[in-house]
C-alpha cells in the first residue's frame, strides 16, 4: 500500500494543463465549455467498432489515459447505447456489423450525435467499399462529424467530438425526424 501511495505521489498529476493559446489545448478547453453550455452535464459516449482494424480503438483508449484524461473533461464512456448522447463509430462497416450498428443507433435515445472516426469510418479507407466492406459509417447510419486519420490521434478525436457538439448546437439539439440513411 505504501509503495502504491508513494508511486501515486511520485507520478503526480500528469494531465496536460488546460487553457493557454495552444491549438490542441484550446480544443479541450472549448470542449468542456460546450458540454456545460449545451448538455449541462457529462457527455456520455458509446464506442462502436463496426469493422475496424482496431487501430482506432487504441487511440480512443488513449483518450482515457491520465495525459488526455477525457473523463476529467466530463466525457464518459458508457457501456450501453441506451445511456449514450454520442456514438463514436469506427469503420469500415462490415456486412455482418450492419444490423448490430443499426440496432445500436435505434437504441440510443434522441437527441443523439454520431461521430465517425478513422479514414475507414469516413469513406471505407484502405478497405474500400466492396464485397464484405460497406465502407463509410454514413452508408448505414446518419453521421454528424467524420474524423479522418489512420488512426486519428487522440487530439483529433477530441476535435471531432467538439465539432459534433457545435453542429448539434447549430441544428438545435432537440431536432426530430432524422431517419435511417440507407
Amino acid at each position: 500500500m505504501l509503495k502504491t501511495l508513494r508511486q501515486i505521489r511520485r507520478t503526480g498529476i500528469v494531465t496536460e494543463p488546460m487553457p493557454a493559446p495552444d491549438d490542441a489545448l484550446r480544443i479541450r478547453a472549448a470542449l468542456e465549455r460546450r458540454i456545460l453550455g449545451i448538455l449541462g452535464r457529462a457527455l456520455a459516449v458509446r464506442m462502436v467498432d463496426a469493422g475496424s482494424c482496431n487501430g482506432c480503438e487504441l487511440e480512443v483508449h488513449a483518450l482515457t489515459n491520465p495525459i488526455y484524461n477525457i473523463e476529467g473533461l466530463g466525457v464518459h464512456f458508457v457501456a450501453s447505447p441506451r445511456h449514450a448522447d454520442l456514438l463514436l463509430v469506427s469503420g469500415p462497416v462490415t456486412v455482418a456489423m450492419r444490423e448490430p450498428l443499426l440496432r445500436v443507433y435505434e437504441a440510443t435515445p434522441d437527441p443523439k450525435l454520431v461521430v465517425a472516426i478513422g479514414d475507414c469510418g469516413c469513406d471505407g479507407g484502405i478497405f474500400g467499399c466492396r464485397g464484405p466492406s460497406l465502407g463509410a459509417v454514413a452508408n448505414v447510419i446518419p453521421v454528424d462529424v467524420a474524423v479522418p486519420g489512420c488512426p486519428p490521434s487522440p487530439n483529433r478525436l477530441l476535435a471531432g467530438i467538439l465539432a459534433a457538439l457545435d453542429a448539434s448546437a447549430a441544428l438545435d439539439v432537440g431536432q426530430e425526424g432524422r431517419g435511417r440513411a440507407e
Partner: protein
Amino acid sequence: MTLKTWLAASAPLAEDPAIRYLRVGAEEWRRLAEDVAASGGRLLALWGQDATAGHPAVFAAYHTAAGLWVGELRRDGPESADDPYPGVQDLYPFAGRMQRAIRDLQGLRSTDPDLRPWLRHPPGEAYEFVRVEGDGVHEIPVGPVHAGIIEPGHFRFSVVGEKVLRLEERLGYVHKGIEQRFVEFDALDGCRLAARVSGDSAVAFSWAYCIALESQWRARIPRRALWLRALALELERVANHLGDLGALGNDAGFAFGLAQFSRLKELVLRATETAFGQRYPMDWVVPGGVARDLPAAAAAALDRCLADVVAESAVLRGIYDEHAGVRDRFTGTGTIAPELAARLGLAGLAGRASGQAHDLRADLRYAPYEELRPAVCGAVAGDVAARVAVRFDELLESCRLARRILAGLPAGDSRVAIVPPASDEFGIGAVEGWRGPVLVALATAAGGRIRRCHPHDPSWQNWPAIEHAVIDNIVPDFPLINKSFNLSYSGHDS
C-alpha cells in the same frame, strides 16, 4: 515416416534453405500433417486459393525444428469440386475453423464434420450453437457489440449460477474481405494493407509481408533497415504489453495499474512518433527497408524513454506482486496447463505462459535476430498470473533489445529500391509479433501485381483456447481471462 524423408520431395522456397516447399497429393497432405505433429512441429497457418489465383489449392505452413515447411495440395485434378480434401482438425484442433473459413472464402471443403459457416454470416440464417442441457443451465449471449472499447464478436456462455460450463465463440463480424482486397494492390503497395490486418500488430504484419515479397523477388535488404525494423517491432511489443498490463490491473479492480501503465504507454507512443513519424507505425516498414531513417535526436529521446519504462515498470511489478487482491484475481484464473496448450497448439505469448517455448525470433533467427539473440521468456502455470508475468519479462527484454539496437545501429542505407522479376513468384514471411507468430503468404505476378495474399494472425490459434480457459471459472472473470490473451478480432476475421 519422419520429417527427414520429406526432404527429398521438397525444394527451398524462394531459394531460402530454411523454408521447404512441397506439392503433395491428398494422401500425402494428411501424412505430412501427421509427421509434423509426430516430430513436435506445429501448424502455423492453413489457407486456400481459388481459380482466380491460377488454380484452386489449399496450403499449410508448419514450423518444425528444421525450419518452415509449406505444403500445397492442388485441387485442379480429376477430383470433382465437391470432393473434400483430408481434414487435420484431429491433429491441430484450431485447424477446424481455418478449414471452415477456406470453405467460406474459396468453396473448398475438408472431410472434417463441422460445416457451419465461420467468416461469412449468411443473412437470415441462425447460427447453430452447441446447446448444454441440464438442471439450472442457462445461456448468456454477449455481443457482437461489447460494453467496453473493444472489437465486436459474439460469446455464448452456458452457465449454472456463476460458473461457466461452456463458452462458444462466434467470430467473423469484422470480416472485411482483406484477401480479396489484396489483389487490387500493387505488390509494392500491399504492405499498407498488410499493416491494417490488425492495427495493434502493424509492424509485425508489414514486416512479414515485406519478407514474403523481398524473398521471392530475391532482394537484399540493408542491415541498417533490418535493425530499424526490429526496433519498431520491439517498440510495438513494449506499447502493447504496457497497455495490457494496465488493462489487466483494471479488470482485477486495480484502477491504479491502468492509470500508471496507460501513462507509460502514451510516453512510448509519443517517442515512437518522434522516431518513425507515426504513433502506430502503419506505413513505416516498406519493401526495400523502412520509409525514413531514424532522426538522431529521436534515438536519444527513445533511449531515455525506454530507460524510464524499465525503471517504472520494475516499481509497478513489485506493487502488482504484493497486492493481495490483484494476486487473488490473477492466480489460478483461466488456466491452460502445458499439456493442453501443446494439444491445442497455443501460440505466442499465451503459449509461452503455458510452457510452449516457441518464439520465431529465436527459433528461425531471421535477420537481425541472429545477431540480437533475444531471450525467450516463459512460464508454466498457464493462468492469468503467468500471462502477466510473461508480459513483464518480455517488456524488459524488448526494452533491452531496443536499447541495444539504438546503441549499435549499423551505418548504411535504410532503404533500397526493389524491382519485380519477369516471372510469377511465391513466398512467405513469418515474424514473431507481440501476440505471436504472424505469417504472410504472398504470390505475385510478373510485373508486380498481387495474385494472392493470405495474412495469418496468431489469434486463429488462440481463440479456441479461451473456450477451454474459462471452463469452471465464474462469468465475472471472463473479461479478465479474455484480456489476458488479448486476441485480435480483426486479425482473425480479416
